[in-house]
Each structure stands twice: as C-alpha cells, then as structure tokens.
C-alpha cells in the first residue's frame, strides 16, 4: 500500500524482506530489486556531502527537468550505494548534465548508449573501486552500485525510460551498470583525469556515452597489441564508421571518440608514453574507401584507388580515452566506441568534491 506525491511516498510495510517490491509497484527500478529510498537513508547520503538536497545539479532543458541532489541521492540509495560512494555518483551526474555531453542524445537514441563512468584518483583506493581483474564484470560493490545509480538517475530523474524517451534498438549490458577505475597509480602513464586538466592528486570522474566493450585478445608485444586494438577499433558498423545524422559531410563518416583499456603488467609499456600509444593507434584506426563503399557508407562504384585510400575513424589522437585497467595476468585490451560523433556528445570530466 502506498500514497504518493511529487516529492515523497508514504508506504506501509508488513514484511521488511519484501520491501523492495515497492520499487516495482511504483515503476522505479531497472528490473532488479531496489533498496527503498527512505527519507532517513537519503538524508544520510546528503549529509555525507554536506548538501541540503535542494541544490540543482543540472538540467535537461529539452525534457523540462531539473535534477536536484536529493533526486540523485534517492537513486543512489536505491542502487545499493554506501554514503561514501555518493560524491562519485554526484560528480558523474553533474558531468553527464554538462551541455557538451548533450544527455538528451545518448539517453534517447536508437544507438543504445550506456554511460561509462571512469573514476580516477585517490578515491579509487579510498572507497574500493575496482580497476583490475574482471574490470567490466561483477563482484565489486562500488563499481556495481555507482554504475547502477547512474542508470537509475537516467531512468527516474532524467525520464530515460525504456520505450518512452529511451528508444534503444538493442542497448547493451552496460546499461545496467558501467563503472570502472583506471589503475593509473600502477603505471608511469598520467591518469585520464590529469590528461583532462585535473590535478593528479585529486579525484575525478569522466563520463562517456558508449557502446559495449569489445575484448582484444592480443598479448606479448606492444606493436602487435596496438595493431590488434586498431583492427578491432576500425570495424564497420560502429558509430564511428557510419555516416548520417551529422551535417558536416567533409569526411563522409561520423567519426567520434573511443575508449581503449590496456591490462596486464605495465612494465610491457615502459618504453611507451601514453601519447605515443594514442598516436600509434590514431594512425591505424581507419578504413578503406573500398570497404566503406561495400558497406554503403559511401555511395558509388569502387575504383582501384579506393583500395588504397583510407579514412581515419577519429579526428585526433586526443579522441582516444586511453586507460590502463584490467587484470594483471594478461595484456588483454578492450575497445569501446562512442555512441555518436563529437558534435552530438563529447566525454565530460568533473572533479569529485570530497
């Protein structure tokens, strides 16, 4: 039994073990059971971050919605977070509500993006975010519940409800939860946050509207690994290698950003800077005009020169979000193409306020 208004809902619970059922009754879940967002749990989260709950964290003007810290806290409680995770959820929410991220696009598109949350800095160790084995997999509360919070914020606070504003054709499992840490303290490479203007001893989140990760099973030799990563990243059928929905036709394809994770023992990369890796990948992430014509991305008959003319799928090496992350046992990698071209959504980084 429940009674609702816009801000609160009064419920009577007989059996506490079934209390999560209220989430289904009120349509607040992602399909999994939720922790009921009681007023005292939400207050605990807000107090942890010294917030009143009335602060406007961001807006979605196209949907005429304002998102307050209270709404974000309620969703973080429901996802199963601890209060100390809340600053990460708050920063990620703020980042995805930045105008350059253009949340209305990736949260509604047929393209079925999930919002990948990448965490950097000391907070990784402080709250136990996983940046190593089973990087995108299950088993860690912080990753699972922070990522899930973002999906619940999207569905509940941002109206990105599947079948309503969320029109994903296939979506992907990352839409349940998609949060990782970068193990930058275990390499000589700068962390992603440092590359994006945040001091190395601060913590930050980067949000990235993204397709699913594809594992690249190449090991042993840096050049060979990068060749395989670039090959996977150059696939036809990703958002990067298609055309349409952009007015700038000078390149002919949409291009975009791409996240690349590299796992294993960082000593393999001792002779490589992050920038060198990015530049090497950039020069190899491309597709021939002949292939693009076969896939009908480009119009016209194939001529001999098309086999040797290549179109880069990225505009710049800086459009690669390179992360050292994943298990220590093997140099497996992953490639994660952006949901769309940069003009439609660009990855955003926000410092975590602690």
């Amino acid at each position, binding site marked *: 039994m429940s009674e609702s208004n816009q801000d*609160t809902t009064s419920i009577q619970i007989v059996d506490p073990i079934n209390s999560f059922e209220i989430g289904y009754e009120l349509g607040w879940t992602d399909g999994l059971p939720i922790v009921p967002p009681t007023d005292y749990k939400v207050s605990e989260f807000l107090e942890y971050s010294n917030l009143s709950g009335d602060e406007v964290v961001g807006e979605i003007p*196209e949907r005429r919605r304002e998102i307050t810290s209270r709404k974000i806290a309620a969703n973080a409680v429901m996802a199963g977070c601890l209060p100390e995770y809340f600053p990460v959820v708050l920063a990620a929410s703020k980042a995805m509500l930045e105008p350059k991220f253009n949340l209305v*696009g990736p949260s509604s598109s047929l393209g079925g993006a999930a919002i990948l949350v990448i965490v950097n800095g000391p907070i990784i160790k402080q709250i136990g975010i996983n940046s190593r084995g089973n990087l995108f997999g299950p088993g860690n509360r912080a990753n699972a519940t922070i990522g899930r919070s973002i999906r619940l914020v999207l569905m509940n606070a*941002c109206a990105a409800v599947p079948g309503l504003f969320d029109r994903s054709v296939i979506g992907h499992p990352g839409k349940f939860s998609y949060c990782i840490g970068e193990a930058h303290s275990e390499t000589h490479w700068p962390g992603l946050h440092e590359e994006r203007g945040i001091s190395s001893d601060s913590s930050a989140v980067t949000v990235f509207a993204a397709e699913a990760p594809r594992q690249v099973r190449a090991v042993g030799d840096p050049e060979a690994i990068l060749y395989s990563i670039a090959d996977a990243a150059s696939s036809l059928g990703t958002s990067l290698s298609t055309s349409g929905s*952009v*007015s*700038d036709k000078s390149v002919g394809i949409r291009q975009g950003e791409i996240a690349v994770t590299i796992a294993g023992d960082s000593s393999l990369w001792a002779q490589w800077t992050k920038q060198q890796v990015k530049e090497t990948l950039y020069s190899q992430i491309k597709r021939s005009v002949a292939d693009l014509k076969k896939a009908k991305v480009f119009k016209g008959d194939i001529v001999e020169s098309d086999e040797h003319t290549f179109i880069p799928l990225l505009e710049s090496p800086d459009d690669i979000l390179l992360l050292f992350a994943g298990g220590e046992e093997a140099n497996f990698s992953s490639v994660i193409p952006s949901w769309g071209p940069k003009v439609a959504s660009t990855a955003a980084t926000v410092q975590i306020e602690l």
Partner: protein
Amino acid sequence: MNTVNYTLINPTTTAKVPDFNGAQRIPTLAGTTLGIIDDSKRNADVLLEELADVLINRYEISNVIWHKKPSASRPADPKEINNLAAKCDSAIIAIGD
C-alpha cells in the same frame, strides 16, 4: 507481523513546462516566407525539399529559408531559431530518417 510506516523520497522528476503563447496563425501561405529546419538525419533533406516544392507550387510560398542542424541529436541553436523567427512567416521543423 506489525505494519511499519516509512516515507520514501520520490526519485523521479516531472516536467515543468512554462506558460507560453503560440504564434498567431497566418490566414494564407501565399506570398509568405517559410523557414525549414533540417535535422541532418539521412534523407531529411530529400523529404523536406520535396515538401518545400509542394508548398511553393500548391500554396504559393514565395521564399524558403533553410537551416541545417550540425547533428540530429543537438537541439537547434537558439540564435538560428531567432533568426528564422525574425525572417519567416511560418516554419517547419521535423525529424527525418
């Protein structure tokens, strides 16, 4: 078992739509200027050019001003909307795909 009362914080939001007054309807399209926003989706231009031809030939629209958005996913730039509002008598905005 005893019944326990709880208060939950609603995690959802509702749209807040400000009041607005729609533009006055125009009595005829003949001799007027039409604005068209192309959303950049594939074939939107084909559809909208055909539509513009129909409006010119059948309803005697005298002038068409086009704006093409840089991306289908981006809202139209308010500057472009204001520009069309200042120069046009009517406008068509549509999602082509």
